[in-house]
């Protein structure tokens, strides 16, 4: 489904700020996999996601989704395959546009944008239903500017936007890190619900070992721009937080 092969990326090559962010990271995901990714600060987790999403060109290696090589595609074209939620709740939605307009933007992700209405009546009903499922009261605020929402509400909305057209791959980069524990729990539960109900292949970065073990069927650890450990299924189920922390120390 997703295959990341020997991806390398050096930032600021040839300067004093040279930094090898990805040093041949390689891994594969099967259809329906939900993999959690852990690793220290600067180990290359976000850079891996950005490499998949095409935020910058990579130095070498390849990224394939569903057998198609997307390594050379610009970011906005890859978006057709991807749903993304960022760590910063402000990043995933347009603050000056309202809730329904944001959802409508996401709904048209894979379509040509022409001179038809940006939001149609028919869609509004659908969005209202979807928002109601979030249980945050957003269905009654569809014409409020997104900038007025709280971080948790915005993150829930971004999650909804990212999964509106079932993406081939969902990328979650510490998407609950900026939220208070209670809201983080809610958003995580919502994530799991959406991901399992729609069987979306998902890659979730987290610094929380509990969450890394609790969610998903696979776990991966990164260090120095490489995937250094992986566990799946039974093996993952047997892992304890202490085991993970120990590996972290190496």
């Amino acid at each position: 489904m997703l295959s990341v092969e020997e991806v390398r990326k050096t930032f600021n090559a040839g300067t004093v700020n040279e930094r090898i962010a990805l040093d041949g990271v390689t891994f594969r995901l099967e259809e329906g996999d939900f993999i959690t990714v852990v690793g220290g600060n600067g180990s290359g987790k976000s850079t891996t996601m950005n490499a998949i999403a095409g935020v910058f060109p990579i130095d070498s290696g390849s990224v394939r989704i569903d057998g198609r090589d997307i390594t050379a595609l610009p970011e906005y074209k890859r978006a057709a395959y991807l749903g993304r939620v960022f760590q910063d709740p402000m990043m995933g939605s347009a603050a000056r546009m309202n809730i329904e307009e944001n959802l409508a933007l996401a709904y048209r992700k894979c379509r040509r944008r022409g001179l038809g209405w940006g939001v149609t009546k028919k869609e509004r009903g659908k969005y209202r239903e979807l928002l109601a499922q979030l249980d945050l009261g957003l269905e009654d605020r569809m014409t409020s500017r997104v900038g007025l929402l709280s971080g948790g509400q915005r993150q829930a909305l971004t999650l909804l936007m990212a999964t509106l057209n079932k993406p081939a791959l969902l990328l979650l980069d510490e998407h609950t890190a900026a939220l208070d524990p209670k809201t983080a729990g809610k958003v995580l539960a919502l994530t799991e619900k959406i991901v399992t109900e729609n069987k979306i292949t998902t890659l979730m970065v987290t610094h929380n070992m509990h969450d890394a073990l609790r969610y998903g069927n696979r776990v991966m650890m990164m260090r120095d721009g490489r995937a250094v450990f992986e566990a799946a299924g039974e093996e993952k189920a047997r892992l304890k937080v202490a085991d993970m922390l120990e590996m972290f120390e190496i």
Partner: protein
Amino acid sequence: MTGIILGAAGLGLLWSVMTIGVFLTYRVLDIADLTAEGSIVTGAAAAAVIIAGGGNPFAASLAAFLAGAATGLITGLLHTKLKIPALLSGILCMIALYSINIRIMKGAANVSLLRKTTVYTEVLRLLPSAANKDMAAIAAGLLCAAAVCAAVYWFFGTELGSAIRAAGDNMKMARSQGINTDNMIIMGLALSNALIGLSGGLIAQYLGFADVSMGIGSIVIGLASVIIGEVLFGVKTFRRTLFSLVCGSVVYRIVIAFVYKLGMPASDLKLFTAMTVAAALYLPKLTKKWAKRAKGGGGNAVG
């Protein structure tokens, strides 16, 4: 007195088309686009040359619109394809336009439209015989401002218009939603400068000439009108905002007319406008500061 107000209102309505253009870059795309200083003259020059050559004034106004669009397109390409910062792209285009505008005017620094058929002489023929040129400008300006507002309102409600707004609002998000942000920025700049060009064409016909230096300070006048409109008339909805922009432009012109009447030398106008904009830009920050102090959030508060 009423004569002064009528003249100011007419000119304000013609400028409102430019104000909407400035709003599109400054507020929607979040770019301070200095191309405006050149594109308003490009529009004026294009319209003037056609009219001076005996062309149809409505076709000339359309040409002003298209010429303006071309200038925005160039700034957009400089910014997105050559990766030159937006502010600098605008400055480069503005400077280049100075030469181009003179070329459009066939090497002259100005073109006179004295006794030529303009949009206003055409409109005047439809009005009662008591009407004068200012009234024709008001009629034409109202019609034009209303049409531009309606078109802009419609366009930014479409899928494409929404995509441009998203690109201006949050580039990262827009790309992750599959929007080609480069194209959206180019389109937004072209549309903005098309309106500014059209405004230039209409203003030149009203003034009776196009002059290569008529654009100096126009971006600041545009910003002043945007800010005055927003503060005085509100921005609750997009429709309201567009209405505010038109009113802001008219109010600005009337204020300027009064300041002249009070005896300010014409050469101080630019200083006056720049100070107005600086003050208006600082105002929201000042009120925030005051609100904070009123809440007792100041550093000296003792519990």
